[in-house]
């Protein structure tokens, strides 16, 4: 009862979003992001070629505007594989990695951050020490040593990114919960006999949704670049599986023969990251106008 009446009115994200499709909505960014997600889902259906299909006779065909043919709009690689089809295949990996890595690191970080912020005391101390410890290792260095002990592949990439980023969420969520905890309605809920789980779900979570949403959107670009870096080093997705990072690693070997092979997958990464960064910036301006800490 108390719980219902003391809820803050400002967390109806759906209502907020509905009123946002007006001025300044980043249609292009949103369009690119939706396009990437759609491609990841229906990729094999729209892909003109099998992404792995070899055709040595048509190796090193340039893109269509540089003297190539429409059959391979973005050209072919050293084994005659269609770069356009491979980029489509690569979106799948990027989206899967981004989805799982963000979901896992976000969920783990949020839960840990909530525990630290809500209970305080020794739980907080231990968790925050752990976060500090982890933050003293550069992310890619941590990823390298982890990648070394894990079997490389999609799972390893997700685990590595999750381990790297959970502390991010934990720190920010903890800060938010610390300030929310002292609010009157949370205190009331506690007096009214609500358990920690109810308070988390009813009072804390709705108020940090905005923050999490902005963090997650801004993380998309970073995760995609992280995956590409790991795969490029040979520690992430392994050829013949396809990701944008793998394509770049392959293309590096014949950079002098085919500039398009090294350019196109990078452009895909760049567009996706630009879109998610711009969208995230917009979201932050809209949802966090006070610029608390993001």
């Amino acid at each position, binding site marked *: 009862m108390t719980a219902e009446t003391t809820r803050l009115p400002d967390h109806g994200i759906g209502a907020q979003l509905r009123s946002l499709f007006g001025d300044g909505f980043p249609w292009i960014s949103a369009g690119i992001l939706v396009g990437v997600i759609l491609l990841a889902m229906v990729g094999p259906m729209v892909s003109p070629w099998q992404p792995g299909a070899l055709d040595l006779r048509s190796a090193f065909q340039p893109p269509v505007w540089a003297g190539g043919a429409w059959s391979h709009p973005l050209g072919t690689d050293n084994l005659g594989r269609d770069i356009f089809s491979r980029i489509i295949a690569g979106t799948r990996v990027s989206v899967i990695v981004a989805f799982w890595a963000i979901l896992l690191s976000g969920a783990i970080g949020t839960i840990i951050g909530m525990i630290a912020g809500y209970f305080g005391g020794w739980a907080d101390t231990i968790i925050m*020490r752990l976060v*500090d*410890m*982890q*933050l*003293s*290792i*550069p*992310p*890619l*260095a*941590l990823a*390298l*040593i*982890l*990648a*070394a*002990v894990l079997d490389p592949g999609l799972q390893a990439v997700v685990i590595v990114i999750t381990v790297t980023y959970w502390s991010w969420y934990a720190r920010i969520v903890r800060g938010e919960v610390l300030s929310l905890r002292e609010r009157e309605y949370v205190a009331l809920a506690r007096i009214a006999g609500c358990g920690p789980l109810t308070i988390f779900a009813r009072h804390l979570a709705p108020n940090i949704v905005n923050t999490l949403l902005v963090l997650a959107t801004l993380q998309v*670009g970073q995760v995609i*670049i992280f995956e*590409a*870096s790991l795969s*490029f*080093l*040979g*520690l992430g997705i392994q050829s013949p599986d396809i990701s944008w*990072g793998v394509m*770049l690693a392959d293309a*590096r070997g014949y*950079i*002098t023969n085919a*500039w398009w092979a*090294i*350019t196109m997958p*990078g452009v895909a*990464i*760049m*567009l996706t*990251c*630009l879109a998610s*960064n*711009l969208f995230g910036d917009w979201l932050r301006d809209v949802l966090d106008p006070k610029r608390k800490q993001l």
Partner: protein
Amino acid sequence: MTQFVLRRVLQGLFSILGASLIIFVITRLSGDPVVLMLPPEAPEALVQQMRERLGLHLPVWQQYLVFLGDALTGDFGTSYRWDMPVRDLIFERLPATIYLASAALAFSLVLSIPFGVISAVRRGSWFDRFAKTVAMLGQAMPNFWVGLLLILVFSIHLEWMPAFGADTPAHVIMPAIALGWYPVAAQTRIVRSAMLDVLESDYIRMGRSVGVPEGVLVWKYAFRNAAVPLVTMMGVYFASMLGGAFVVEVVFAWPGLGRTVVEALFARDFPVVQAGVLFAAIMFVIANLLVDLSYGLIDPRIRHDR
């Protein structure tokens, strides 16, 4: 102030200890670390010897102490790939990494300071938009891909720039751009918003009212105030460039710590990986420490408060 310095140094030491613990835990996660630390073809006698040396028969916490003791005495074992003590290898490669990270930091500042300051002075102008675009691009491109594009254009097509190695001063230019472009966006943004705040302040108006020239007002009076948040941010990025230049170093065959660690990883030369990552963490912590200590140089209020 002294107390503050001491406290931060202690915190730094604690962080390094924590990093070593994490590295230790991860290497033990895989089961038998000896498998990681020796090449697959190592003779059984060597494996046994290694087990003894690592004290694998001891309880885990004692194993950590052994690991820590070795690290403290500078004994990181021997590199199989390079056939030399790991410590010597690391100290041989470290300077190149510091050099590259410094050059990258310099590049990022050369872009982001004028970008941020001029964007603030002429907000809404074409320059403001241009700077924002350049900055955002850097954030959206993997640094190694920027490196590859630079090689493609300036080394392969135009043949202006050397692509690999670190022999001449010109060699550092392209890797520094590749590594230093990423932080430009965040740094520009922070300089711009800090400058916007400062330029509206009473003391800038006061300076203007006594005839201080506009250029001095913007670049000296205002910028120094706007520099504190920039230093914080730049320190964080410098630290991560020191400890995270792996991919760029690989792309440009830069003889630094990052490439060494990656090569060691593939050669299963685990002592090098372990020590390399630990050193990356140490430099990361030291760089962050230096940032904290540098505030006092910029802002006298901090100098006197602590």
